[in-house]
């Protein structure tokens, strides 16, 4: 049973560029949440997708957008990259109505913005 998979694992971009990160949820899960983890900090909630719609959003600018596909996989897009966007981006999946708050995380995509 595959867990949450994310790609790419590492990538380097320059300021002003755009990036797309991908996530496949754990089998049987229908909800995907994205988190940003800066160095030395805990993960910060970006947004959550369910039924191909953004259901909740954290305190992130509109440069951060996402998408969920019919097969429940998801993408995170970040436009006009800033140096401060350098972080580990974590995808977490869950099943709506499942164990409350228990998210399954992927290994993350490490983004470096130069």
């Amino acid at each position, binding site marked *: 049973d595959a867990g949450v998979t994310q790609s790419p694992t590492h990538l380097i971009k320059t300021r002003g560029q755009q990036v797309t990160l991908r996530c496949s949820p754990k089998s049987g899960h229908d909800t995907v949440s994205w988190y940003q983890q800066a160095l030395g900090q805990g993960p910060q909630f970006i947004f959550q997708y369910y039924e191909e719609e953004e259901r909740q959003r954290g305190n992130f600018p509109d440069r951060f957008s996402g998408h969920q596909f019919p097969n429940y996989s998801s993408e995170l897009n970040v436009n006009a990259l800033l140096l401060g966007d350098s972080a580990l981006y974590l995808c977490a999946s869950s099943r709506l109505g499942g164990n*409350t*708050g228990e998210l399954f*995380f992927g290994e993350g995509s490490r983004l470096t913005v130069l």
Partner: protein
Amino acid sequence: DQQVKQNSPSLSVQEGRISILNCDYTNSMFDYFLWYKKYPAEGPTFLISISSIKDKNEDGRFTVFLNKSAKHLSLHIVPSQPGDSAVYFCAASALGGSSNTGKLIFGQGTTLQVKP
């Protein structure tokens, strides 16, 4: 505004002894609390949780205590093992009666080292 705080960046204990990790929160709307463990190059993994209607939850070597009046929770690991060495994150959620919002507020993490 850091709503969930883990004031100890690191903790070192001897194998077999008790590890106590602490977490404070400020938002009284939080009604569900979780602990996650993270090894290097891996995503966080769920460890144990507690609802605000309880003050203790136990799972094997792991026990979480919640003190709502103090807005404080702690994770006890007894006995500690070298394999427990990892970063531990406290997280909180304001479910308000709904389930599984997926929006967790995390603390900064505490790095636990268990020495053999």
